[in-house]
């Protein structure tokens, strides 16, 4: 049974490219252009790791992560952002995320992080 991956990024081409890349690692990837549509389509207890963009119109990455935590879901979250913020990586860990990667992400690094997150 392949691991489920959810990608939430407002940039369509980033979503598509991540899905393509992760499919070559045999993941089952679903993409969403907003946090709203992710919550509407994926149940809180559905298994799978979430790759989450930080800067999005509407609900941003931080709010999305908070909502997941508040709902009691144990879903592992990996933040992915183009923004280089020195404190963003630390902040991501502080709010309970598995990790923070800066775009463009290296495929192997991402997969290693997903695998270690899924084992937990």
């Amino acid at each position: 049974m392949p691991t489920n991956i959810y990608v939430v990024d407002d940039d369509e081409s980033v979503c598509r490219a991540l899905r393509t890349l992760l499919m070559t690692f045999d993941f089952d990837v679903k993409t969403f252009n907003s946090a709203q549509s992710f919550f509407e389509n994926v149940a809180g207890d559905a298994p799978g790791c979430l790759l989450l963009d930080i800067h999005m119109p509407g609900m941003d990455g931080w709010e999305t992560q908070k909502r997941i935590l508040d709902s009691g879901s144990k879903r592992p979250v990996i933040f992915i952002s183009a923004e280089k913020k020195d404190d963003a990586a630390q902040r991501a860990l502080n709010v309970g995320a598995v990790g923070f990667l800066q775009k463009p992400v290296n495929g192997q690094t991402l997969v290693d992080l997903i695998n270690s997150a899924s084992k937990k």
Partner: protein
Amino acid sequence: MKKKKIISKQNKVKEPQIKDFTRSGLEKKISRQSAELRSKRGQLREGADREKFAQKEIDIRTKAMEFASDCIFIIDAIKSNFPIIYVNPSFFVLTGYLKHEVIGKSYFSLNGFDINLSIAQEIKQALLQGKSFYGEMLNSKKNGDKYWSLLRITPVRDNKGVITHYVGIKTDTTLMKRRDLEIHEQREELLHVTRVGKLAEFVSSLAHEISQPLAAILSYAEADQRILKKMETQLQESFATSKFSKKSEDSMPAQIQAYFPMLQEIIQNIINDDQRATGVIRRLRELLKKNKPTFEPVNINALIKDTVALMMTHITSKNKVINFELDSNLPMIQGDRVQLQQVLLNLISNSLEAMEERPESRDLLIKSFLKDAKTVMVQVRDSGCGIPVENMKKLFSHFFTSKPDGLGMGLSISRSIVEAHGGHLEAENNIDCGATFNFSLPIGIKENV
């Protein structure tokens, strides 16, 4: 008879009566002459009084000229060299020249202190043609210091209409000029900061826009690399096990085999160049990383007034009127003056542009008030065309603009500035007409998130 004569004497004092040499005639003559004297004395006294009065009048006028804070001077227009015959003390104070250096000297020779030669020429022509002169110019004092002055020279005519003198008034406008210049410089500086800020924000947004597809390209290339590797392995396996292997030597043909490293190399080159471009973009963003704003206590009302003062000429030239409803009891807020000024400047110029097409809408209102115990609100309310509903959502995003020559950065920068101050910037349409932009700023020191 006697009585009659006295009467006639009184009535006709000056009538010569040569023939009357009698005693009574002599008496008459004496009394007549004394009457004459009395009348002369009366006339003299009257004349002296009148003179005294006139002298008083002249004294007052002279004193007034002496005490006037503007420089006043009189030029003799009858003499061909136009000598200066009077200057008041303010003239000495302003120019630094002494009395003997000015009085009796030709006005034209003193034009030396008019720095601009063409203006000196203009004044000379006016005087020679009996016209008046009006103009502002840069002058130089005796010690070489420069000062700005407003000069008016008008001809003085006698009863026959002949120009006998010119009277000149010179007002020191240095302070006004300096203030104008300062306002101009401040405005230029602010515009420069705004332009540089806009450019930086523009480039940084552009960098973001470019880095997204670069990230996508990298992922695609990595996916390709992996698929290719799988393909190579699978092909090798099938050659080893399938019917192909019987024909050749348990492996795929050398020509096909040779494609794989070539394709791998091409994809690796795509990845390398993508990473190179990403590096350039990343360094560019580092370079443009915003300087941290310097927070200091700011009186928001004073800041509003200062900003409006910078734009007053602009507002007036557009025939708009700016009104204030500022709560004078507002506490200080913590903020970066230049950045907040940028926000105000932006909102006001947007409002002016919104009212551009509507000459009948003239009123722009700026309000400040306490929203709650911790928040100050500032509102900029125009009576312009309002914001179309479909634009409301995109209003604050980068590159969104409804103007033909707009960059679409103003409102997005303004919002990020206000948010960096811990506040919010919002827009809404008014019920009657136009739109209102309001931003909140927290009182006291902003905590860093």
